[in-house]
C-alpha cells in the first residue's frame, strides 16, 4: 500500500501530519502489517511530555509488542481513546481512524518524505 504523500515519516515507521503547531502521529501500514493484528495499545496520557525518539507507548499484537517512539519533543494534547475498544482500527485504517496521538510540539525534527520512507521499507 502506498504511503500517503501528504504525510511525513520516521525511521521508526511512524507517520506525522503537521498542522500548525500540532502534529498527529500514527504508525504506518507497513508497521501495522508487520505487527499483525493489534489487540492492545498503551498511549501516553494528554498532558504528558514527549522527548524525541524516547519510548512513549506500546502497541501489542497477538504475536508481539511494538514500542511507540515519540517523533518529536512536545506535549501530548490528545490520545485516540477509540482505540481502547477497537485497536484493530490501526490495522484497518492506519492513516485515518487508527491515528494514535496529537502532540503540541516544541521542535520539529527532520522527517522523511513518503518516497524516502518507501526506500527504507523497500517498497
Amino acid at each position: 500500500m502506498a504511503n500517503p504523500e501528504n504525510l511525513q515519516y520516521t525511521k521508526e515507521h511512524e507517520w506525522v501530519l503537521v498542522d500548525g503547531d500540532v502534529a498527529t502521529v500514527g504508525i504506518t501500514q507497513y508497521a501495522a502489517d508487520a505487527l499483525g493484528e493489534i489487540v492492545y495499545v498503551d498511549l501516553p496520557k494528554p498532558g504528558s511530555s514527549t522527548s524525541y525518539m524516547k519510548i512513549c507507548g506500546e502497541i501489542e499484537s497477538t504475536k508481539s509488542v511494538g514500542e511507540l517512539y515519540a517523533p518529536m519533543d512536545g506535549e501530548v494534547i490528545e490520545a485516540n481513546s477509540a482505540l481502547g475498544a477497537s485497536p484493530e482500527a490501526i490495522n484497518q485504517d492506519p492513516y485515518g481512524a487508527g491515528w494514535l496521538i496529537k502532540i503540541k510540539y516544541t521542535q520539529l525534527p527532520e522527517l522523511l518524505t513518503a518516497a524516502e520512507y518507501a526506500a527504507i521499507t523497500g517498497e
Partner: protein
Amino acid sequence: MLTTPLNDEHVSLAATFTDFGGWNMPVRYGSDLDEHHAVRNSAGLFDISHMGELRIVGEEATKFLDKVLVSDISKLSVGQAKYTMICSQDAGIIDDLIVYKMDTEDYLVVANASNRHAVLVAMQDMADYGFKVDIFDETEDWALVAIQGPKAKDILGMLVDVDLGELKYYSIAKANLEGVPVLLARTGYTGEDGFEIFIPVLECVSIWRKLLAAGGTDLLPCGLAARDTLRLEAGMPLYGHELARTLTPFEANLGRVVAFDKGDFNSKTELLKVSSQPLEIKLFGIKGEGKRAARADYEIFLPGGENAIGKVTSGVLSPTLGYPIAMAYLKADLDLGTGTKLEADVRGTRVPYEVVKLPFYKAER
C-alpha cells in the same frame, strides 16, 4: 530455508512468512484473529508439512518403540494414535510425539520439525542394539494438512470415501480423497474437532485447493499465529516453550504419558527417580486481568513479592476469552491452588494474574 510443498499456494494467498524450525512457514494470510475465530466457529486449514514423519517398520517395531518411547505402545490397536514422548537418559524431554499404529508392526511417528533429527538420532542409537526394525524419515514424502473446527467434518466429508463419524478421536485410517490415497487422522492442535491429512507430496496442491473450494466461506487458510493462540487456549504444550530437554514430563504435568508398568525402557531409571522426588517447578495455567498479556520469559511473583517464583513460557491475550492467558513454570512447593493470586511483571508494571485450571478453553462436544 526449507519450504513445504504448498509454499507456492501460500505465496499466491499473500501469506506473511516466518522461519519456524528451519522452515519458511505462513504466519497469517490475512488477520490472525479472523483465522483463530474461524477455527473456533467454523473451520480452518493449516499446512503443517514441516512436521517430521518417521516410519518405524519391522518384526520388532512394537518392541523397539516400547524401548525408546515412554508410553506403552504394545497396548495400541491398529488404527489407534497415542500422544507420547521420547526422553533422554537424564529424563529430559527430547520431543513430544504422536504415534499412529498403521499395521501390526508398522508405525508412523510425527515429530516436531525442529526435533526431527534429534528423534532420528535417539531412535537410531537404540536400533543399533540389534532390534529388527527399519527407521525411515518420510518427512519429504508427505504433505501434512490439518482441517480443524466444528465444520471440519462436514467439509472433509464431502471429499472422502469414508464415514468420518466412524473415525474416532485419536485414530487414523486410510481413505480416498478425490481419487488420492491419503491417511486421515482425527487429531489436531487447536482444541477443536478436526483432522490431520497425510497427503503424497505430488498430490497435495490439488487437494489443498479442493479443500478450500469445498469449504468456501466456511473454511479459512490459517497460519502459525492462529495455530499458536489456539493451542495455547486449549492448554497444549509447545516444544521449546513448555517442553524442553531440560524439563521432565512430570514438571510439564504430563507424567500420565509415562508407563512405568510396561517393563524396561530407555529413560526409565531416571524417570522413576525424578517421579519419586518432590518437583522444584511445575507447569501452571494462569489468567490475567485487563488486556496486557504476560509473554514468554516474563517473571511471575506472589502479590507484592520481591523474588520471582517463576516465568511465563507462552502468553497471549486470548482471542476467544478476551483476557490474558499464559502457561508458566512456577515453584512447585508453594501450594499454588486454583484461584491463587499472582502478579506478572509486564515490562515494568505488575499486572494481577491468578492460577486457573488447564485448559483455558474447552470445545463443546
